[in-house]
């Protein structure tokens, strides 16, 4: 055995450098895949939004903001944007309200069924949203479970309009985004510790005060993350508005699809997409700002740790 063999150290170099040959080779397939199937198509959308649509579905290649101007000056499109945001806000608020108690329960329970209960709460994630939306059609429709039951009980004589309108879309979307919200909340409730609630109680706080002064502030970051997620998902949701909306709920997602495939007006579809992305950007910027403010309460204004 030679001296070198004995001394060969298992120390890896740590100085940062550009992606070496190894890293590049490993990253190449992924980068190619993402360029082809994600980056390039998105650039195409941006490019398309600067074109104009001509007569009879033709596209006039140009670089102008004419299509943007056309869309933004139309009351119809502002209406769609408004309804998109309205739906997003309604769904987000409803989802947070119904998810919070469950998430709080799941985060705090010490039951031995906890694993099962968490699984039950997130199982719907694994089930196609088309199938779940179909379930809601069977519940909310004029011949659906709710109207049949209420009718037979003699509570209503006319069916309640729960489908083919915004109400139905909000109800179904709320359920569809609940598992996302619950998961985001549970993983954001890390600061919640039963001992903190005990400490507050031992200092004289009744249950309601413990909730308001300790539990709520500690769970707010998780709620905020869940809110972002649900809002973003519902801004771009397509299946539920289309199926439950029954062609009467117009949001950006349904309109992008119609413009692209029925009206064949690709520049307008691209402009609507860019507007949707811009909306996303605004929402995420607001979220990051709010998160920073919230986090400062835990780590101090300078964010220093000692």
């Amino acid at each position, binding site marked *: 055995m030679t001296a070198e063999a004995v001394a060969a150290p298992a120390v890896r170099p740590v100085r940062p450098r*550009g992606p070496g040959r190894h890293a590049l080779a490993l990253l190449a397939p*992924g980068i*190619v895949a993402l360029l082809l199937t994600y980056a390039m198509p998105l650039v195409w959308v941006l490019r398309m939004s600067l074109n104009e649509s001509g007569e009879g579905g033709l596209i006039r290649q140009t670089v102008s903001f004419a299509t943007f101007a056309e869309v933004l000056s139309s009351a119809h499109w502002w209406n769609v944007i408004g309804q998109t945001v309205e739906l997003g806000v309604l769904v987000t608020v409803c989802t947070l309200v119904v998810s919070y*108690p469950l998430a709080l329960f799941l985060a705090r329970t010490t039951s031995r069924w906890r694993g099962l209960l968490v699984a039950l709460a997130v199982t719907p994630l*694994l089930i196609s949203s088309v199938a779940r939306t179909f*379930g809601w059609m069977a519940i909310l429709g004029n011949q659906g479970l709710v109207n049949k039951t209420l009718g037979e009980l003699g509570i209503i004589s006319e069916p309640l309009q729960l489908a083919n309108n915004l109400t139905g879309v909000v109800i179904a979307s709320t359920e569809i985004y609940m598992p996302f919200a619950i998961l985001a909340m549970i993983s954001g409730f890390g600061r919640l510790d039963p001992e903190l609630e005990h400490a507050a109680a031992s200092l004289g706080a009744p249950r309601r005060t413990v909730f308001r002064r300790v539990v709520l502030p500690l769970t707010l970051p998780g709620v905020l993350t869940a809110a972002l997620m649900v809002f973003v998902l519902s801004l771009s949701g397509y*299946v539920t508005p289309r199926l439950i909306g029954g062609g009467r709920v117009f949001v950006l997602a349904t309109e992008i699809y119609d413009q692209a495939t029925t009206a064949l007006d690709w520049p307008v579809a691209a402009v609507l997409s860019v507007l949707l992305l811009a909306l996303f950007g605004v929402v995420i910027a607001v979220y990051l700002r709010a998160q920073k403010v919230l986090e400062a309460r835990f780590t101090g204004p300078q964010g220093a740790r000692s």
Partner: protein
Amino acid sequence: MTVRRTGRMPWAHRLGRAGWAAVLVALYLFLLAPILVVLVESFDDATYLRFPPQGFTFDAYGQVFANESFRLGIQVSGVTAAVTALLAMIAGVPAALALTRLRFRGRSAIEAAFLSPLLVPHIVLGLALLLILAPIPLTDTYWGLILAHLGVTVPYVVRTVSAALMSADPRAEEAARTLGASGFTAFRRITLPAIRSGLLSGGVIAFLLSFDETVISLFVSGQNTVPLPVAVLQYVEYRSDPSIASLSVLLVLLSVVVVVLVERGLGLRRSLRSG
């Protein structure tokens, strides 16, 4: 002195707890309502959707397989999902390896780039892919669908496999090196077995995501190559009968079986989190 005490809880407190439990049960019911309804409907013997169901039959399950577009849809989705999962693994696993085990400048930027498709709404990606695939023309083909699904599945593979790699202790690999294993042998003998379940979940997640993908597929599929979710969506829009319910139940069973198999290997929840 020893005084036996029972029923010490004040009644108001007990009432509060009962109310709380009722709220939780109601919320669970709401959450699971559509799935329960679909399950019950799938056994109805009517040819239209009604509630409550009157008869009990497996007929609707037979209709699923009698329906040409569903049969074709299962085939299209199955093939697309399998090829997509394979390609996503080929693209994603080496990337995850580079991102977790190598240090280089711009690593975090590249990592962010790999995860960024998760932030882009599918409706926009769908349009984008339509714009780029239509002129080639690859819309309404298997390859079009596969390419379209690749962008949204690679990030999940990267994330799942990275998580597995990060929880595998790199010192175990170093220990193998000190015992005389070459770099490749150490990886193959020590790290690979440790992340096997992570690799499996990455592949399964990619498969399920592709199999379930609706919105992007709507844009890039046409009359000939229609994946199952699109076929179902188009069917539901104009008709409602128990066969859709039966199909949904079959799909639920498929996901549950797959997930249970994977969950025994590695937590799927971690990969779905903030997805």
